[in-house]
């Protein structure tokens, strides 16, 4: 009989087994989803006559529709393991381009198309800089953000463009079955992004790249192309958000929707706490978006002033993420 080989190593085969959980269990055990539920309950208890009414729920959805789209773009980039600081600037430029073209007489469809192409090109530029020139995502998208905002100022000539064709405005202000169109568009885009991430080889390659670049590369994933595509898609989707925002407000300014950047990152981070793997995911991002929307709306209804709202929003995000990380440490 030979000597025992690794006397020192713990026999961990019993300890390792992680029990399978049902989807419901998974969601509920997450601090973030719990936070959302608690928030909804809280606001409902404070104003039961108003908070969960059809009008108010519709308002919340309306208010976060654009953010949901931008956050979807951010999700893709974060799945791949990077992040994109230029999403809001791209959306503003896209809105400005569409508005400017329509004001000069271009047909609406063409103007929108041009705006989307602009977004796509910006995303492409980001992707090339990051995947091929190997700049860090932070530096590259920060630079893009600055230049794109400058472009937006140029396109709008420093003012707010308005007087957009009513058919265009209708995209952002029209309703179907009493629900504003942007809500449907946001749902549609989110569904498409979710599908791509979950079911297509492209989406799986994105996850693989974000999970471990080396192993992915060795298994035949073209990591560079994956990252390039992620940023390009993000630029395109951000442009959709920007066009929709312009339609919603009936106007386009260079800095419109600025706060969508930080909120989109916050939403994706909140979403990452929901899944076991800690990877960015679309459903989680939407939960994050919901938290942000519910909070803003609820605090407005309670008449809490804007400065306090900002403080509270930050605190709730910290709380949700901390709760989730505590649970992870228990495992």
């Amino acid at each position, binding site marked *: 009989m030979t000597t025992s080989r690794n006397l020192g190593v713990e026999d961990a085969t019993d300890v390792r087994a992680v029990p399978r959980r049902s989807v419901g269990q998974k969601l509920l055990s997450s601090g973030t989803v719990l936070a959302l539920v608690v928030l909804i309950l809280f606001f409902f208890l404070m104003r039961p006559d108003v908070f969960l009414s059809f009008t108010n729920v519709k308002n919340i959805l309306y208010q976060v529709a654009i953010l949901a789209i931008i956050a979807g773009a951010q999700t893709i980039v974060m799945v791949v393991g990077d992040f994109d600081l230029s999403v809001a600037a791209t959306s503003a430029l896209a809105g400005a381009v569409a508005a400017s073209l329509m004001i000069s007489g271009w047909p609406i469809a063409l103007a929108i198309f041009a705006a989307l192409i602009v977004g796509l090109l910006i995303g492409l530029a980001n992707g090339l800089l990051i995947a091929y020139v190997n700049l860090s995502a932070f530096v590259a998208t920060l630079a893009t953000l600055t230049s794109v905002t400058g472009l937006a100022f140029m396109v709008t000539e420093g003012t707010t463009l308005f007087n957009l064709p009513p058919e265009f405005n209708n995209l952002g202000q029209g309703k179907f079955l009493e629900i504003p169109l942007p809500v449907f568009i946001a749902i549609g885009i989110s569904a498409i992004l979710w599908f791509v991430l979950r079911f297509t080889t492209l989406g799986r390659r994105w996850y693989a790249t974000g999970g471990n670049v080396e192993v992915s590369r060795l298994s035949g994933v073209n990591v560079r192309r994956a990252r390039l595509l992620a940023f390009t898609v993000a630029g395109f989707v951000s442009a959709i958000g920007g066009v929709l925002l312009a339609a919603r407000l009936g106007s386009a300014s260079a800095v419109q929707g600025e706060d969508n950047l930080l909120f989109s990152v916050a939403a994706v981070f909140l979403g990452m706490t929901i899944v076991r793997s800690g990877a960015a995911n679309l459903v989680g991002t939407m939960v994050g978006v919901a938290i942000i929307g519910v909070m803003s709306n609820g605090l407005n209804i309670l008449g809490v002033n*804007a400065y306090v709202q900002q403080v509270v929003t930050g605190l709730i995000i910290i709380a949700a993420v901390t709760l989730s990380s505590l649970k992870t440490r228990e495992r």
Partner: protein
Amino acid sequence: MRTKFKALAAVAAAATLLLAGCSGSSGGGGDASGGSDEPFKVIAFTSGNQTPVGAWWVKAVEAQAEELGWDLTMIQGDFDFQKMNPAVESAIGQGADVILDGYTDVASIGSIVSAAKDAGIPIFAMDSGTEPTDAFAINITTDQQGIVDSTLGALDESLGGLDGKNIMVIGHDPHAGIRLRAGLAADDLEAAGATLAGGEIQKVASPATGRTEALALVADYLTANPGGLDGVWVGWDDAALGAAQAITEAGATGKVTGVDAVSESIAAIEAQGAFLATVEQPWPAILDSLMEHVLAYQEDGTMPDENFEAVSTTLVTIDNAADITPSDKLE
């Protein structure tokens, strides 16, 4: 000929300094037509060049300088005091006869004021504070109380009296003028027997997102208090447009007033929807008046009698909307 070279050299030196410090600034040169050996040296700065009025002011001052043969150094601040103040101070270090301040609150330019005082250069300002201060030779601004009186008057007339009405006041603290007039409006409303919706002035956190913030604020308020909003007094047009949109979308009947008379709000007034009135601030006339003081000083060193002047404004309603030149279309 030599003077022209000297002027160019001075401009080149100043421009190099400025290029190091800020973007978007143009070193304007004056044509020394007119016989005097040393052209009148003027430093002009504004932090608000990204707003339509600020952009207009830059162009207008440059045009004046060109016409009068001034040696002008124009510094555009982009709301970035960290960048602008040192640039202006460097220019002061190069020497000047007069400094022009456009739309930059005295509270943010303490270091510039000291530098100017030390160099013995007078500052002629417009819309740079709401109270007399010896930082300026003269500051010509609009009469905030007058603005409040006329807008509240319009609301009073439209609503059939302010007593017992529920009015929301929306302000933005970082802007001195808006802060002052919002406070005055709140006080006067309460004195007239109206209630402030939400119990206090509603603050917008960022001018870039002012329109969407006001939109969400009013929409949520209406959901929480259906039919409970008689009017909204807003400190500036962009946010007022957001408030008006919220009211229209909710199908409510409140009236909204703004300040600035941008083309979009004039169009809204003419459309006779929720947007009731705005205020035209006579910037071109104020600039002319300021220039008179500067020319008097240039002539024989006469300083203005008072260091503060508040000029009256014009209320813009459906009656006179068609005759008003919008502030974002000033030539």
